């Protein structure tokens, strides 16, 4: 693994002509009486990495959870506005949430493998969605997912051991494998590296860079360096507002918004 990062291959610069995968229009979220998001409008383009940054409590996770309706699982949360996935409103009452979440997968801050074997963890999604016609096909899905998550080599001899027995970094990659096993179109990641050491972080970052060939990725991160390394577009949140959004290179070199400037320079010192 290359720790110097100098040779870390950066994806192609943002091309304006990429199609919009998800579009949110004026999204507001209330937790009970408290408003957590005040009208966010943000486009997420296909096959690239969008990073969400901003100070703690500004609503990044809240926004991310809107994108696959995980906020539905919180009793007090109420979402207004429109979020389109390929032009379709995901908050349409007719929409099947289960299917939506299969299309928009999620990786959480803390690795959360199920207390099952590694194989079972990855096979979980394909099984419940009936993606495999037979046992061989399921085996195939599990293996390719593990390979794409860069975990296969490390675990190929212990697929029937519990997923919870892996190291933190391996667990997080297992969770990523689990997410990509259902072939989602979009993968949401909420601070996926915050529980990992620098080496595991580097592995996951490389993985994200590779995954963007096939998936649209939205990642929440507290690390400016990470945002700069992996993303093509960065969105800066502040107190429930979207302060600024733009190409990552521009955001970090020459931000328009005063808040972005303060936040970034504060972090970089």
């Amino acid at each position, binding site marked *: 693994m290359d720790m110097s990062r100098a040779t870390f291959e950066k994806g192609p610069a943002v091309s304006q002509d990429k199609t919009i995968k998800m579009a949110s229009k004026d999204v507001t979220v209330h937790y009970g009486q408290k408003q957590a998001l005040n009208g966010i409008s943000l486009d997420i383009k296909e096959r690239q990495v969008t990073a969400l940054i901003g100070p703690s409590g500004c609503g990044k996770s809240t926004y991310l959870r809107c994108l*696959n309706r*995980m906020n539905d*699982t919180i*009793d007090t949360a109420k979402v207004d506005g429109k979020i389109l996935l390929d032009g379709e409103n995901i908050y349409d009452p007719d929409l099947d949430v*289960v*299917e*939506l*979440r*299969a299309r928009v*997968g*999620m990786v*959480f801050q*803390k690795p*959360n*493998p*199920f*207390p*099952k074997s590694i194989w079972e963890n990855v096979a*979980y*999604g394909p099984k*419940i*969605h009936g993606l495999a016609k037979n046992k061989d096909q399921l085996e195939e899905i599990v293996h390719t997912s593990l390979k794409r998550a860069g975990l296969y080599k490390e675990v190929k001899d212990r697929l029937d051991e*519990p997923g*919870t027995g892996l190291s933190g970094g391996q667990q997080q990659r297992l*969770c990523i494998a*689990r*997410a990509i096993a*259902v072939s989602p179109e979009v993968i949401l990641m909420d601070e996926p590296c915050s529980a990992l050491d620098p080496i595991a972080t580097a592995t996951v970052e490389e993985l994200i860079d590779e995954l963007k060939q096939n998936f649209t990725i939205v990642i929440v991160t507290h690390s400016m360096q990470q945002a700069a390394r992996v993303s093509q577009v960065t969105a800066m949140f502040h107190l429930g507002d979207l302060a600024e959004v733009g190409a990552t290179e521009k955001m970090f070199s020459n931000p328009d918004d005063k808040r972005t400037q303060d936040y970034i320079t504060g972090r970089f010192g």
Partner: protein
Amino acid sequence: MSTSIIILIVLLVGAVGGYAAYQRGRQLRIERGMRPHSRPIYHASYVLSWAWVPSLLLLGTWLIASPILNEIQIRNAFPEDAVAEAGLTDDLAYGIVESIGVGLRSLPEDERDQIDEDTPIEDALPLFRQYGVAIASASQDWMLPLAIESNIWSTVSRWAMTIVVVLFAAGGAFYGYRNIRTRLRARNKVEKVVNVTLIVASSIAIMTTVGIVFSMLFESADFFSRVSAWEFFFGTTWEPRFSAAGSGGETGQFGLIPLLAGTLYIGAVAMAVAVPIGLFAAIYMAEYADNRTRSVAKPLLEVLAGIPTIVYGFFALVTVGPFFRDLSAQISGLLTGNYSAFIQAQSVLTAGCVMGIMLIPFVSSLSDDIITSVPRSLRDGSLGLGATRSETVKRVILPAALPGIVSALLLTASRAIGETMIVVLAAGVAANLTINPFEAMTTITVKIVQQLTGDLEFTSPQTLVAFALGITLFVITLCLNVYALYIVRKYKEQYE
């Protein structure tokens, strides 16, 4: 002086000492200008411990030892042969001496003064009777002086105890107080006292259990010396005829099988009712219900747990039993034209169903706690992959909660096996051996109650069998618990 007053004095002495220590601790800080090792509250607790613990320990020992010593002394003073001559045993003679002592103490002072060592017992007895103390007619003249001596001994012993214990308390407090200085590690010492207290508390719990088990074992051994173990464990007839006093000979049959079968059968029906309903209710409460529903429904469900089991038994007797009987009469009437009930009013089915209802809140509230304690992240992980709620419950939450749920269920099973009142009223006391759930059966606990109620000596197999039954029940419950532990451990190894 009565024991409670002695304890009160000790507590007061400790409290005063503790207060003084607290003030001293604060003063130390001001005087020396540096922070003492421990805070004043620890100085107070330190002195408190010194005042309370040794004196109360001494009090306890004294209270136990003094009567024993007294008894030994009195028994040694029995005149030789007099006991046997009067046709008494030592135990009986001692009992009479004791009650004469009680009689003496209940007399008003001026009347007591009239009685001395030479008073014939016949003169004293009417006086005792007058003050409500009846004494066996076998009492002898020589017993009166012994009783007087015994009373003097106890009075002296009590005064000595009072003085010594209070001195101990004061001495302890004083010693502790003298020790207070900046460097005194009162905090660590108090920690040790706490530690020992906790150990003592758990030892008491364990010793009690061990004691109960051993006493049951001894009594059961006595039983098995009269009735063969084979006959007890494999006998299929339960008929412990209560032989008329003195007739002897006939001992009856003590076959465990019908009772064991009844216990397991009724327990199984109860679990079959309680487990699905309780578990589903728990899943609903933990996973589906919103906060408002939960805050109303959960307490309501738990009200069920507060109903005394006798009320359930009553409910079984007057409502459920007759309902099943009438229902079966209707059914057989429709099918065969003959309106005869095939479910008896008292049956395994009735007892099982009612007991099952009683167990629902146990299953549901235990399982609810366990299901709720499954980390939210697992739930989110599954939902985030597009699983429905029920898929999440079935494939992630229940497997993760399984060890806890299994132990909750085994705990519930132990309750089902130990339940008595519902069975008496709902399934009756007839020890049948049948596989028909519509007939009456009975359980081990019911028979224990039956064998022990009544005026019986603990020497006949008819009563001793209760201990054998008790130990059988204990072993069953123990096995359930051990099995639960085994499952939990095995599962943990697999997934942690």
